[in-house]
């Protein structure tokens, strides 16, 4: 009965599913696909063909920003249904996956412990670390307990939950269960523009469970790789995951804005999908810290979510706002309006050394110049499948 086996995840500490857990996960994914295929186009038409003309009639001018249509759109039952489906998926899939982790908690705990018994990498925790407000005051993407809450001594649950969710949420868009597309995309961007770059020390900021870190380490096999995050259960799991995947990474529990590493001690400082979970001040702090940590000639590279406000249609602006208003990603819509070049200049980089634009996502090393572009979608769609990137040399 080969086809009924659930062993579909390729590293030793990934939570597994029994039949019903997998069926529920498949159901959530299918329901989300149904919503995006059937409800998204209708919701877009509702906005463009009903709400916008109504507002235009009332005010005499066509709305250009999602803030001008929010009230009217959210008062419409069809959009309320769209919102309900989106929120229900996001709330309940976490609880479903978390239930599966509770069921196998002791078994996973033993697996995590076994993986780190004789490690190639390392783990340094700081129980006294002050967690930034943009992490501590709400649970990002409605993940109960966020990255930081321990549910047992030496807990790994947040990492296991995040790993399992990530492999489901972007199953075909970011490298399947490895969820490492952003890491390959980042490494491809660096090697595209800086082909002779041979970093000896790399630091990945806000590494979560190391999804991207492992891919970056694979792209630069001669480098010593460091990774930090504020969440202890993320790091304990990430450490075990990296060991299970045979990659030496030195994890530490630190705030990306204020690390304890020495000035000019890294050749590459990077982050993947971290900035949108910080704040305006946090982003500035991370760019400044990146500058401080780089040796002369070193490279900073941050890749993040693709929405750019100046390129988005009204509905796509609203879809981006949804993340801020309802999915506990409050900085997302501001990040889409932020001039990354200015942030890099304020952090000490020279304009001539900074690149900002979209990078087409890849699941393997592909340093291809055709994958870098600065134009938005002709119909104002968000560039899902690409990432927004900023690189700079010091």
């Amino acid at each position, binding site marked *: 009965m080969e086809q009924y086996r659930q062993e579909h995840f390729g590293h030793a500490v990934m939570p597994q599913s029994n039949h019903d857990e997998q069926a529920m996960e498949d159901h959530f994914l299918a*329901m989300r696909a149904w919503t995006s295929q059937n409800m998204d186009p209708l919701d877009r038409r509702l906005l463009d063909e009903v709400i916008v003309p109504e507002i235009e009639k009332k005010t005499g001018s066509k709305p250009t920003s999602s803030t001008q249509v929010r009230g009217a759109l959210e008062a419409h039952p069809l959009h309320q249904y769209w919102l309900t489906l989106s929120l229900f998926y996001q709330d*309940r899939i976490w609880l479903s996956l978390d239930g599966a982790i509770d069921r196998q908690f002791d078994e996973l705990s033993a697996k995590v412990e076994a993986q780190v018994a004789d490690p190639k990498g390392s783990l340094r925790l700081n129980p006294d670390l002050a967690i930034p407000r943009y992490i501590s005051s709400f649970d990002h993407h409605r993940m*109960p307990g966020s990255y930081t809450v321990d549910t047992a001594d030496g807990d790994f649950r947040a990492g296991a939950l995040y790993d399992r969710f990530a492999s489901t949420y972007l199953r075909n868009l970011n490298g399947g269960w490895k969820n490492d597309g952003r890491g390959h995309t980042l490494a491809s961007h660096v090697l595209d523009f800086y082909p002779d770059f041979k970093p000896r020390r790399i630091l990945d900021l806000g590494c979560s469970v190391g999804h991207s870190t492992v891919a970056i380490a694979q792209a630069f096999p001669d480098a010593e790789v460091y990774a930090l995050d504020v969440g202890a259960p993320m790091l304990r799991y990430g450490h075990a995951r990296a060991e299970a995947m045979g990659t030496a990474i030195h994890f530490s529990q630190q705030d990306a804005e204020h690390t304890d590493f020495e000035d000019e001690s890294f050749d590459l400082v990077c982050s993947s999908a971290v900035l949108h979970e910080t704040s305006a001040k946090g982003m500035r702090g991370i760019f400044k810290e990146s500058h401080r940590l780089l040796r002369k000639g070193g490279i900073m590279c941050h890749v993040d979510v693709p929405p750019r406000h100046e390129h988005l249609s009204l509905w796509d602006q609203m879809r981006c706002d949804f993340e801020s208003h309802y999915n506990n990603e409050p900085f997302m819509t501001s990040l889409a309006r932020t001039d990354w070049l200015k942030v890099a200049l304020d952090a000490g980089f020279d304009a001539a050394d900074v690149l900002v634009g979209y990078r087409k996502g890849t699941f393997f090393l592909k340093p291809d110049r055709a994958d870098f572009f600065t134009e938005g979608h002709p119909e104002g769609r968000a560039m899902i499948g690409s990432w927004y990137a900023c690189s700079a040399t010091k």
Partner: protein
Amino acid sequence: MAERMNLDRKARSKGSQPVVFESETVDALAGLVLALLGEVVVLKDRLDANERLLKAAGLHGPADIDTFAPDAEARAYRGAYRQGIYERVLGTARDKLMPEALSDQHDYEGVLDAVTRD
């Protein structure tokens, strides 16, 4: 067995909790319906798996299921998974409608239960 802690903190996410339709009650009903949809889909998948496995093994058919009477072990097993279904379906509405004052009562009842079993 690991001693778990902070379980209340992972029961629901901290942050945005909007009322989408005209009231919490309507939102709760929408949640109930959507949760039931999930239960039905999983159940159908399980039946589908069962039918395929039975067919492959050349075993019993629908008529045997019609006359099946669960024994004590099966009844206990069903009782346990039903509680899980109720938690997922009915818990959806409870989590939507729980006022702050009742959260304390909920926490206290957990303590009461723990003290009683000490």
